[in-house]
């Protein structure tokens, strides 16, 4: 958190990414305490009811947009809260993909929402229930389990260093 001389705004940024400026008045925040109830992903449904049941304080949002202004990742935090309210899990996951869970939005929010925990849940729900399965990965895992590549792997293990270097240099690179 910092202020700059002659500027009424209270800024929030990540220390690792923010250059020091003349007259900067800084306080470092270790963390923002935030409530995260326990849940078992496999028992949840990917909808707004789930988010509201675990984080009812979402409904306290007054659309002040303070969270968006505080976010060092420049995310549309308020819009993510709004999407949570209407149960649009996929949109929440997309809005918050780059969230670093710094908790700065949570620190500033007058509605006392624990944003980053909601985001994490939304991304988990999105990944577990709403994103199409990657079928080719499944096929490949099955092939590996079935021993399709066993011969080649065994060969790799027995190679000498020089053979490995030569094989590495001669590898095919996907375009």
């Amino acid at each position: 958190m910092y202020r700059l001389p002659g500027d009424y705004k209270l800024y929030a940024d990540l220390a690792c990414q923010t250059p020091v400026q003349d007259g900067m008045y800084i306080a470092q925040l270790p963390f923002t305490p935030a409530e995260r109830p326990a849940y078992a992903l496999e028992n949840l449904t990917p909808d707004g009811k789930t988010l509201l049941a675990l984080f009812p304080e979402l409904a306290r949002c007054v659309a002040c947009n303070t969270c968006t202004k505080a976010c060092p990742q420049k995310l549309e935090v308020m819009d993510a809260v709004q999407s949570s309210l209407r149960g649009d899990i996929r949109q929440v996951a997309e809005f918050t993909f780059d969230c670093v869970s710094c908790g700065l939005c949570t620190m500033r929010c007058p509605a006392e929402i624990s944003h980053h925990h909601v985001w994490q849940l939304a991304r988990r729900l999105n990944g577990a229930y709403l994103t199409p399965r990657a079928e080719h990965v499944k096929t490949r895992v099955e092939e590996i389990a079935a021993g399709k590549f066993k011969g080649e792997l065994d060969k790799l293990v027995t190679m000498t260093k020089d053979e490995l270097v030569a094989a590495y240099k001669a590898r095919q690179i996907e375009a």
Partner: protein
Amino acid sequence: MKKLAYFPGCAMKDQARPDENGALQALAILGYEVEEIPRWNCCGTVYSLAQDDLMRHVGPVRNLVRVQGMGEKRVLTLCAMCYGTLTRSARFVEEPERLERINAFMDTEDDFRGGIEVVHLLTLLRDEVGYEKLASKVKRSLDGLKVATYYGCVLLRPREFAVDDPERPEVMERVVEAMGGTPTVFPERMECCGAYLTVGRSDVVTDRAGRILRSARGNGADLVVTTCPLCQFNLDERRPAGAPSLPVLYLGQLLAWAMGVDEPAVAALVSKEPATGKPVPSGV
């Protein structure tokens, strides 16, 4: 096609989906090109009644700024409660000092200049579409269905923002008639269901729901129609054991069905009577 900016509100994207689906299809049939306003936020559901609580008007006003940004002069709502917060907040911040403060606070937005009209689906049907035109688009008459028109509070109170006479409203009844239904006027149609008390005092809301449903049924209704997602939830989900089981549907659902759009909840209520081809109530 007539362009119309539209503020859905959260409920329309969640539990009140059938209302939105139905209403938007009906509006398309009536010649409206409805455009959802971009990046809208929750209107706050309840209007803040205090003089100094400006923060609680930020939500509704931010939405009005979006309407302004679309170059539109008015915005449609389907939800009764959205209608209440948007109309009342628009008026509240007309006062110059409040407007200045709220604009200074929302420094990431364009200044709100006021002058946005908020219309509810019911007033649109009455004042712009007209009951005759509405009736002319009806493909399947609701003939035989007795529809209890439940207004609740926000549509009628306070007086300055009422969609109709707060003590003797008739707009919803006339819309039902235009669809060929028979409106059931019952005393509780303007009485509150308990609204947000449903969160901490579901006992009170259960009593209210029972009373409203018994009155509707007692006056002969086959179903209840409402435009408020909270009324719908309270009457349906807080229905006490033993209360009449009549369905509580949204206006959008009835409109869609009457205009020939697929609407399973209404279809389940009516079955074709072979001789007349008229729908008759079934299983209520």
